[in-house]
């Protein structure tokens, strides 16, 4: 390829122009470094700017989102043809297990209803805020954010849980006018209090950024988790309502397990934004603790 010849030579004007160019580029780099430091220290600083950008570009994502369902993602679609046989066997086994689980869940549900009736509690199902399409995700960055097609106009505010029929997807991080950015469960900054379905083994589910979750038990000791255990939200912390499916343990580690997501966002089309489960509780927790008995 021939040289482009942008050198200035003896031309004074060209020399100055080139110098000014380098200066501008360096200023740009320094500005970038400063902005980077600011946004690492205070990640919410530029949220307004970001939601504006996602509002503007959301319509592009929305048109594509409708075609995504069923195709999951590029690689899975292709890979599906190769290991169909072994997958089929695995699926059949899984179904057999799932049938048993379903029966167990039914039993638990019935008992739950009976106990609740005995206590005089109402069956409370929170009213959903909005249904939205999952329109995109930050597929090139190490952070795992998603974009959904609903925003402040529908009453979506940061912190609200986002679920799909298969389970928890994430929570709203920033809401624009008609699009929002959500933190997917697999982001390394995402942490959800969970418990094992069936008993009260409590744990935290942390994102590992590679598509799996890390289950960390709160009570250390002998690790009772087994492969195939399903974890659901525990409701601790007040953000997520209890009982939403999160993940299934696939690999046992020293302090818990590595778990696969139950609601794969790649195969999810419509998600539901739910209200924060116990907003009052969250607000109370944010306030500093004051001892009421303290005189003066």
């Amino acid at each position, binding site marked *: 390829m021939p040289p*482009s010849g942008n050198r200035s030579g003896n031309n004074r004007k060209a020399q100055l122009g080139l110098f000014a160019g380098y200066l501008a580029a360096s200023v740009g780099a320094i500005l970038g470094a400063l902005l980077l430091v600011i946004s*690492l220290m205070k990640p919410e600083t530029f949220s307004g700017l970001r939601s504006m950008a996602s509002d503007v570009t959301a319509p592009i994502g929305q048109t594509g989102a409708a075609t995504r369902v069923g195709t999951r993602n590029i690689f899975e679609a292709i890979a599906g043809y190769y290991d169909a046989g072994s997958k089929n066997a695995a699926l059949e086994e899984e179904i057999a297990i799932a049938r048993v689980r379903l029966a167990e869940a039914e039993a638990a549900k019935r008992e739950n209803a009976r106990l609740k009736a005995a206590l005089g509690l109402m069956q409370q199902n929170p009213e959903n805020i909005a249904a939205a399409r999952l329109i995109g995700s*930050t597929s090139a960055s190490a952070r795992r954010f998603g974009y959904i097609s609903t925003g402040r106009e529908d009453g979506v505010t940061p912190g609200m849980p986002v679920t799909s029929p298969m389970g928890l997807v994430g929570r709203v991080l920033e809401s624009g006018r008609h699009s929002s950015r959500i933190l997917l469960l697999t982001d390394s900054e995402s942490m959800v209090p969970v418990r094992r379905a069936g008993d009260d083994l409590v744990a935290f589910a942390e994102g590992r950024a590679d598509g799996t979750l890390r289950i960390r038990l709160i009570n250390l000791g002998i690790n009772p988790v087994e492969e195939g255990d399903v974890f659901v939200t525990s409701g601790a912390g007040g953000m997520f309502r209890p009982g939403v499916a999160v993940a299934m343990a696939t690999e046992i580690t020293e302090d818990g397990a590595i778990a696969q997501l139950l609601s794969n966002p790649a195969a999810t089309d419509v998600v539901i934004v739910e209200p924060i489960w116990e907003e009052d509780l969250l607000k109370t927790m944010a306030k500093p603790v004051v001892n009421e008995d303290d005189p003066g």
Partner: protein
Amino acid sequence: MERLNHSSRRDAFGSKINRTSSPLLMVGVPWLTIMLASLAPMLPVIALAPVLPPFAYIMLLAWRLLRVNVLPLWAGLPLGLFDDLLSGQPIGSAILLFSITIIAIDLMEIRFPWRSFWQDWLTGSLFISAYLIISALVSGADLSLVQLRLIVPQLLIAIVLFPLASRLVSVLDRLRLLRVRRLA
């Protein structure tokens, strides 16, 4: 009379008679294609792990290596800002890395004015590797050293894709220089 030079009236960029390139295309095509590549997060791919290559950065590299003068030296600031708004990286990371890349390629152009395909691919691969690793480090994600292997598949895809992107850019460059404006 026989024509001596067959490309005297017409060449790959269109008719040479009474036509010239449009300034709008000449300036706009590189900017527009890089910004379009920045919209990749709005693709209907919900990735559980970083799998897609950094399209905007690859386009920037390809444009810069093909035609060093097509983007001004300060282009990293606006292009980087636009990329940061959607990419999920903290704002400033692409501004910084795009700006540094533009300066670095300019200095490289002075050292190696004549380059081959392989040298451009090597340069592109090195720049993409550095970009992905630094981006992951400053992303604000809580990554351990083990999890840095996350970017390996992404890196390989990006490196394999780079010659294709260069090819695409050279086609776009032909579009950029098309003589569409009629001289009065």
